[in-house]
């Protein structure tokens, strides 16, 4: 078909070409004539254009034809294809059925296979499970095996260790057996040494015993030596004592003499002391009397002054009697008069108070009555007003009543007229007219009524105003007075309020400070309360301190005076604390001890000194009385031979006093004292003289 088509196109193109060439030739020929170039060109151009258009048309036609042929061919081919397709479809359907059958078979087979597969899977699973269980059991078994193997290994290890230990122990045992043998040998050596030592010890103990015996003998000898030495020392002591005793015995007679003299002196001194004491007491008594008399004198003077003053007062009092003219002689009368006057005064005061009370009560009553009057007046006014109002109401009501009765009568009349005129005539328009007329009447009457009421009210008001004006006219004065009173009362009220406030403030302050209302409360406290106890203690302390103070002052005065401490002041020591007392006592004791020791020492020293003086100078010097010295020579022939010297007050010059012995040695006195004026020369000459006499005799 295509070749045909191609041929047709080739033919068509050949034809067109031929056509064109022909036309060209014509056209070329047409060119030979150059004369009509332009128009021929145009014509050629137009011819070409027409040719081209024709060509195009033809071309398109040819194309159309080709397309139509193609379409036909396509349709044919379509039909053939359709038939073939139908055949194919049938075959396909048959194949499909076959395939479906096969499919079903295959499906059944698949199902069977699937069932078998599931069974197989189940079996597999069971097998797997069995496998797993077997594996687990295997594992457990293997674990057990491993444990057992490990245990075996451990056991083997322990066995090896134990074997090692056993070997070590055996080695140790061996060593110890060796040591044992060595130690046995050492033990035997030591035992031998022990025996040797024991023998030595026995020898040593024997030696010790011998030594101890010798030591005891030594001790005994030493003791004997000590005893002998002690006896020696005692004998020496006794010898010394014997010597002392001899010397003392020699002194004995002298001591007795001295004792006698000392006793005499002692007695004398005691008497003197007693006299002294008595004299001192007398002096003190006299001094006290003196003081008392001086005090009494001073008091006398003051008493005399007072006496004069009192006399003067008495005289003035007596004059009073004369001046007042009353019958007054004694102070009792005066007091009686005064009492009477006071009583009169009291009575008068009572009367006064009663009168003031009654006046107040009366005033109060009056005020109350005034208030009542005011109240009553106001009530009266109110009542009057009410009465007038009521009367006006009554009048109004009466007028209403009259109007209403008139209405009623009118209405009744109308109704009667209507009732009387009840005929079958046409009432309705008449009735309605009459109704309207009646209604109008009623309305007019109502209006008239209201107007009248208004008038009445106006009249009432006017009347009231008139009455009010009248009342104001009448009571203006009262109102003014009332207003004044009100102002005064308000001023008083304000003042009272202020006072009240200030009093309340004061009251509050006082209550806070502790004030109370004596009529309602009272204040109590415990008798034995700490404040009062403290006060009492304070007082007692003060008293004690004052007493102590006074006693100490007396003590001070006495001590300053220089007198001895009276016995009653020694009680001062009791006020000092016991500790101080003990301390002072100790100090006193120690001082006394010191004193005694000093005395003893002084005595011994003095005795020594006197002895020395006696031995050296040959004279014993005694003090007989104040400033008188008695000398006794060592070589005196008689006991009573003594010289008396008197010392001057200063102690510088000595005077010889007459004694029996001095009369015998007048020559010496004249020589040494009167001429040479030397007492030591006299004394030494005397000793020489006496000594010479003694030796010669």
């Amino acid at each position, binding site marked *: 078909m295509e070749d045909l088509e191609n041929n047709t196109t080739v033919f068509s193109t050949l034809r067109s070409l031929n056509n064109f060439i022909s036309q060209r030739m014509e056209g070329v020929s047409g060119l030979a004539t150059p004369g009509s170039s332009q128009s021929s060109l145009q014509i050629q151009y137009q011819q070409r254009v027409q040719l081209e258009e024709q060509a195009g048309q033809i071309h398109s036609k040819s194309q159309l034809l080709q397309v139509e042929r193609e379409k036909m061919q396509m349709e044919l081919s379509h039909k053939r294809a359709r038939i073939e397709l139908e055949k194919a479809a049938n075959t396909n359907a048959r194949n499909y059925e076959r395939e479906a059958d096969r499919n079903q078979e295959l499906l059944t087979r698949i199902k069977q296979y699937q069932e078998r597969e599931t069974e197989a899977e189940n079996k597999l699973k069971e097998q797997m499970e069995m496998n797993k269980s077997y594996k687990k059991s295997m594992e457990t078994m293997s674990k057990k095996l491993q444990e057992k193997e490990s245990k075996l290994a451990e056991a083997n290890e322990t066995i090896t260790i134990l074997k090692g230990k056993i070997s070590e122990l055996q080695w140790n045992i061996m060593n110890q057996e060796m040591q044992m043998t060595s130690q046995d040998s050492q033990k035997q050596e030591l035992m031998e040494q022990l025996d040797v030592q024991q023998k030595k010890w026995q020898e040593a103990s024997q030696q010790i015993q011998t030594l101890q015996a010798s030591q005891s003998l030594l001790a005994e000898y030493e003791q004997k030596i000590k005893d002998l030495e002690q006896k020696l020392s005692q004998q020496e002591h006794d010898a010394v004592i014997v010597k002392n005793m001899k010397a003392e015995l020699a002194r004995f007679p002298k001591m007795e003499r001295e004792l006698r003299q000392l006793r005499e002196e002692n007695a004398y001194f005691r008497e003197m002391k007693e006299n002294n004491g008595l004299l001192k007491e007398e002096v003190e008594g006299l001094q006290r009397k003196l003081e008392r008399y001086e005090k009494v004198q001073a008091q006398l003077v003051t008493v005399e002054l007072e006496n004069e003053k009192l006399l003067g007062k008495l005289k003035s009092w007596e004059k009073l009697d004369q001046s007042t003219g009353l019958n007054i002689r004694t102070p009792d009368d005066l007091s009686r008069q005064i009492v009477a006057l006071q009583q009169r005064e009291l009575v008068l005061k009572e009367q006064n108070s009663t009168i003031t009370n009654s006046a107040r009560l009366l005033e109060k009553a009056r005020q109350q009555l005034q208030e009542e009057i005011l109240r009553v007046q106001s009530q009266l006014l109110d009542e009057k007003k009410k009465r007038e109002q009521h009367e006006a109401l009554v009048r109004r009501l009466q007028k209403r009543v009259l109007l209403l009765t008139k209405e009623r009568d009118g209405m009744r009349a109308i109704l009667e007229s209507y009732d009387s005129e009840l005929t079958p005539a046409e009432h309705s328009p008449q009735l309605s007219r009459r109704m309207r007329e009646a209604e109008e009447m009623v309305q007019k009457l109502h209006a008239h009524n209201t107007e009248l009421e208004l008038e009445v009210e106006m009249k009432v008001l006017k009347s009231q105003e008139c009455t009010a004006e009248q009342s104001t006219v009448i009571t203006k004065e009262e109102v003014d007075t009332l207003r004044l009173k009100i102002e005064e009362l308000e001023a008083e009220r304000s003042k009272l309020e202020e006072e009240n406030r200030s009093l309340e403030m004061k009251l509050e*302050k006082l209550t806070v*400070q*502790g004030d109370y209302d004596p009529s309602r409360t*009272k*204040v*109590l406290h415990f008798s*034995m309360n700490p404040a009062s*106890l403290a006060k009492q203690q304070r007082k007692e302390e003060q008293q004690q301190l004052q007493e102590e103070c006074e006693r100490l002052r007396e003590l001070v005065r006495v001590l300053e005076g220089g007198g001895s401490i009276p016995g009653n002041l020694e009680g001062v020591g009791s006020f000092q604390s016991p500790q101080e007392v003990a301390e002072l006592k100790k100090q006193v004791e120690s001082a006394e001890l010191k004193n005694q020791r000093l005395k003893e020492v002084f005595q011994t020293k003095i005795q020594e000194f006197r002895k020395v003086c006696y031995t050296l100078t040959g004279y014993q010097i005694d003090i007989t009385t104040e400033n008188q010295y008695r000398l006794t020579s060592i070589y005196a022939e008689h006991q009573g031979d003594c010289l008396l010297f008197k010392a001057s007050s200063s102690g510088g010059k000595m005077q010889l006093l007459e004694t029996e012995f001095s009369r015998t040695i007048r020559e010496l006195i004249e020589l040494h004292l009167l001429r040479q004026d030397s007492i030591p020369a006299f004394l030494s000459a005397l000793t020489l003289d006496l000594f010479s006499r003694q030796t010669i005799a």
Partner: protein
Amino acid sequence: MAKQLGRDQQGITLRGSAEIVAEFFFYGINSILYQRGIYPPETFTRVQKYGLTLLITTDPELQNYLNNVVEQMKEWLYKCSVQRLVVAISSIENNEVLERWQFDIECDRTAKDERAPREKTQKAIQDEIRSVIRQITATVTFLPLLEAACAFDLLIYTDKDLAVPEKWEESGPQFIANSEEVCLRSFTTTIHKVNSTVAYKKDSFP
């Protein structure tokens, strides 16, 4: 303790209120004596009360005196015949009153006739008492120092018609001449109300 628990459940009766107030006075007076140095601090010992550590005296004479007064106060509180309790601190030397602690008591007399106890917990009352005692301790900061040796006295303001018991006597109110007053807190047991104030002598130096 069981009695106090029972009281908690039952509420406040007149007798219970009297006991509470009397106890408060005992501990309050002890605190004042300690704080103001009326007695030496070593004569006080500590106790626990109202949730505080309070100090009370160990001096037997003083304890005896306080117990007597507190017992009497309890009776009077039950009878609602006491109006005021005053602790007057005075100098021993010149008997001048230097400080006055005043406790006003307002008594609700209707409580005598009531049968049912009032509703107020023990704890609430204790809290109020605790705050009052704390304030007493705090007042030490502004009260002037008591330099001289002082003694105290307890004055009780009662109704005029009350019988004066043995060992008690009437006395003056012991005012302070030139005083400065400070009001402290109050506490109430719903039957008794106690207001506290302290008055002290104004110093001569401003």
